[in-house]
């Protein structure tokens, strides 16, 4: 669009036609205050805080609803404007309880800021304030009515942003109040967006309220540990008796791929860290019982047993099972441990999507993987299978808001009437299990049409749809785990045939894509290279076994037959998730690293208490392939990161850990003065060194040493280290990956999590459990709260 020139406070500002005055001012660094205006939500014009003077217009104008026009001359801060805003604040404070000293929002409250800016401390009102008791609308949402300033942000974000429409405004004028959809409580997705967006403390979080003050916390921006979308969540941490306690999760930073969004898990489900069942010391089975032991004892025992088995039978008698929630560095290190230390390819993980088949379909071709950001900006989206609203909340948010804000065309094809059909330009229901045939048909295989033609959807309708999709340049194709194996090639073919089109494969759990990329497969090395063709891994690692190892079912069979002598499980619960007979491993030496005594941990001979992803550093790769930094926020005394434990076990086996973790490399340099005139130099050097992966890795427990190796050896991971360290997402690619593989589709088992569950981890979150319990309760028979 053409640019428009305006003058704001004597400054020349140029912005595209159609820009709102408040945004144009912001782009010039001039802040116009507002309560009701919120970017990307519909305009309200309710709070009258953004009043500005536009020359030749008779009265003050609301900058949030005024579109800029050529030659406009605007003043944003004159005595008249100041007085108007002060008047507004005074009215808002008329019935405001001014309970800032106990209010959760105190210290980060927009009304507080405005009161300080415009100084309406004295009121002309002498009437008694209209007090109402605080209401609990759900386990996580509390409403304090007198604090509300009726900006309607919560109503709009819930309806427009989330498509939940659980909040509304009852009554009129001074008696207007925000009301939940079920008389006195909410029936909603419990995302907590309304709490984050509330400019005051009217909506507060059940998990955080009255716990601490914003300035008493340290705020750490890290990547969420739940689903595979990779939202950035800001964790507020505070010192506690047992380390650092995470008190709050929210999204104040908004620089992540999720922008404004966080779901219930990202916002509230960090409380598993302080669950009473959390393990904080190693356990060793003595006389049949798991007994507390020291770390030294535990490592020594594991090292000795693993060494014995390797020496007497060989590494092929040990199975290793990795995790979808550990960092890339840990996954990489674990498979390297298996292959280099144990000298076996017996390594597997809980596969939730067929990433090797995706790599097989995309390698050697032009890059067509989409990032999570592309889903928000694409002009059209085709969604096959999955239910993103439940399983990929961020993806659903991106799709929904792309449709709303950019009028993207959404095509949904699913065996179930999923919620996203409400945004779809076209929704087609197909028989369950016919997703593969659908992909084949869309890719041009006409014979496949029979399997998807039903009474409701005729052949002609399918052909029309296919033609329409072919005419959608820059389409983003998103598909769920319903499509596996060779069918993925059809999706890739369809995508490649459309100009500018890109593809997303949906897996579950925070780092399932990372686990796949890092080679937690018995037949694939990192970057989907086949084990028979070790190439540069052979050069770096010296010894790599070339025969494919055992998959999990084969490990179970091996254990039953007595050929698998040991099982090493890191951050996973296969016994429960694959319903394995726990007695299968009765004669094997089982080592489990986990936070809790899971179904798998109870059968172990040694259990090592692990730190979770909020308690360590590294990187995660989301399901789209976006690489992001994981930063340490919390800490629980008595636990260790999986990274450290793997290295310690290798060390205890008598292995030279320098061959496992390439630490001690980098530059040995005088880091400069820390005081005096040149003091800043050291910091600047450090930033540069770190950005280039050259900072000295002082110990074998430094995940960055392994990130160096990942960036060197895993195709597609040679992204900007500077951006990763700065907390930005960097898209990895698959076009230069190894050849991948077509695995047995039965090995893939989607997690089937919903909004309120999160695998084994979710069971230990009180918040998630309380929300689930609350939803089963019958709605209370009470008078309308919104009186």
């Amino acid at each position, binding site marked *: 669009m053409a640019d428009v020139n305006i003058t704001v406070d004597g400054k020349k500002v140029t912005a595209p036609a159609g820009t709102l005055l408040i945004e144009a001012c912001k782009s010039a660094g001039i802040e116009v205050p507002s309560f009701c205006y919120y970017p990307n939500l519909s305009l309200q014009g309710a709070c009258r805080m953004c009043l500005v003077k536009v020359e030749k217009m008779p009265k003050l104008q609301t900058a949030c609803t005024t579109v800029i026009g050529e030659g406009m001359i605007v003043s944003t801060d004159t005595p008249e404007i100041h007085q108007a805003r002060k008047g507004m604040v005074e009215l808002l404070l008329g019935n405001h309880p001014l309970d800032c000293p106990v209010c959760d929002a105190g210290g980060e409250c927009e009304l507080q800021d405005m009161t300080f800016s415009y100084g309406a401390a004295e009121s002309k009102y002498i009437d008694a304030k209209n007090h109402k008791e605080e209401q609990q609308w759900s386990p996580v949402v509390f409403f304090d009515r007198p604090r509300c300033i009726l900006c309607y942000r919560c109503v709009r974000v819930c309806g427009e942003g989330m498509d939940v*429409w*659980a*909040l*509304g*405004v*009852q*009554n009129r004028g001074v008696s207007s109040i925000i009301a*939940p*959809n079920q008389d006195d409580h909410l029936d909603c997705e419990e995302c907590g967006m309304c709490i984050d967006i509330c400019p005051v403390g009217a909506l507060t979080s059940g998990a955080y309220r009255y716990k601490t003050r914003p300035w008493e916390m340290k705020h750490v921006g890290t990547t969420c540990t739940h689903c595979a979308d990779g939202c950035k969540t800001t964790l507020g941490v505070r010192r506690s008796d047992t380390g650092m306690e995470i008190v709050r999760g929210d999204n104040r930073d908004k620089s992540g791929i999720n922008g404004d969004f966080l779901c219930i898990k990202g916002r509230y489900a960090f409380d598993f860290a302080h669950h009473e069942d959390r393990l904080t010391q190693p356990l060793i089975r003595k006389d049949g019982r798991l007994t507390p032991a020291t770390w030294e004892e535990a490592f020594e025992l594991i090292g000795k047993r693993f060494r014995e088995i390797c020496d007497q039978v060989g590494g092929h008698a040990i199975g290793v099972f990795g995790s979808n929630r550990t960092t890339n560095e840990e996954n990489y290190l674990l498979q390297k441990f298996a292959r280099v230390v144990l000298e076996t390819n017996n390594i597997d993980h809980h596969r939730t999507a067929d990433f090797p088949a995706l790599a097989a379909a995309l390698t050697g071709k032009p890059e067509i993987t989409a990032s999570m950001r592309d889903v928000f900006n694409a002009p059209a989206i085709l969604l096959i299978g999955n239910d993103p609203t439940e399983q990929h909340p961020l993806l659903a948010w991106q799709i929904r808001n792309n449709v709303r804000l950019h009028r993207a065309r959404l095509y949904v094809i699913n065996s179930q009437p999923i919620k996203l059909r409400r945004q779809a330009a076209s929704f087609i229901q197909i028989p369950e299990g016919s997703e593969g045939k659908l992909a084949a048909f869309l890719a041009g295989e006409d014979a496949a049409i029979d399997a998807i033609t039903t009474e409701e959807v005729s052949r002609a309708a399918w052909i029309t749809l296919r033609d329409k999709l072919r005419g959608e340049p820059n389409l983003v194709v998103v598909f769920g785990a319903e499509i596996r194996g060779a069918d993925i090639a059809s999706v890739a073919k369809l995508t490649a045939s459309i100009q500018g089109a890109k593809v997303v494969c949906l897996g579950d759990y925070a780092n399932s894509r990372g686990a796949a990329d890092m080679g937690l497969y018995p037949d694939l090395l990192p970057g989907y290279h086949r084990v028979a063709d070790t190439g540069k891994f052979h050069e770096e690692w010296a010894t790599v076994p070339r025969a494919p190892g055992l998959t999990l079912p084969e490990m179970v069979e091996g254990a039953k037959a007595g050929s698998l002598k040991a099982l090493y499980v890191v951050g996973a619960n296969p016994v429960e998730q694959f319903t394995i007979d726990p007695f299968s491993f009765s004669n094997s030496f089982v080592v489990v690293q986990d936070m809790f005594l899971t179904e798998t941990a109870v059968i172990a001979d040694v259990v090592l208490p692990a730190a979770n992803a909020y308690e360590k550093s590294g990187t995660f790769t989301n399901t789209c392939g976006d690489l992001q930094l994981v930063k340490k926020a919390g800490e629980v005394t008595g636990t260790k990161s999986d990274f450290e434990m793997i290295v310690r076990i290798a060390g205890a086996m008598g292995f030279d850990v320098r061959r496992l973790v390439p630490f001690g490399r980098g530059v040995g340099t005088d880091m400069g003065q820390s005081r005096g005139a040149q003091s800043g130099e050291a910091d600047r050097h450090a930033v540069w060194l770190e950005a280039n992966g050259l900072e000295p890795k002082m110990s074998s427990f430094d995940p960055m040493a392994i990130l160096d190796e990942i960036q060197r050896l895993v195709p597609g991971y040679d992204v900007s280290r500077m951006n990763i360290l700065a907390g930005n997402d960097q898209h990895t690619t698959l076009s230069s990956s190894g050849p991948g593989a077509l695995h047995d589709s039965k090995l893939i088992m989607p997690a089937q999590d919903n909004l309120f569950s999160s695998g084994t981890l979710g069971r230990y979150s009180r918040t998630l459990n309380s929300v689930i319990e609350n939803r089963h309760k019958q709605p209370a028979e009470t008078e309308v709260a*919104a009186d």
Partner: protein
Amino acid sequence: MKFSDQFEARFSDMLTHYPTKRSVLVPTLLYAQDEVGYLSPDVIHEIAQRLDLTELEVSNVISYYSMLTTKPRGKFNVQVCTNIACMLRGGEELLDHCKTKLGIGHKGTTPDGTFSLEEVECIGACSWAPAAQVNYDFHENLTVEKMDKVLDEYRKN
């Protein structure tokens, strides 16, 4: 929920008058209220479904308009105006008289369900103040005696 044929005819006609479905909400609510007497949860549910709205949105609109009610009213809804013209000519006395006579207050309903009483804003009958409205019928130039007659007349019906 079943409405009369007349309601259905009006409803389907109204749908053609507006660019979006939700726009017919207010008249639909008013017609439904005339037919059922008040906007019961069933009515709200039905209308929300027909117009693709949430029940919350429908009750938000109802709560905004004082003419719409979610509580049953008497057979005759006596609305006494107390805005400026009526007030100057005795509207408030009229309201007080109705309160005493009917033994109910603002927004109250007599135990036999015959009368409801409401103090309302201007009903547009200032030239004939003080005025009152009973359901959709106007009664003008009222005095306490005239009001008694009006109420007695309704009571007979």
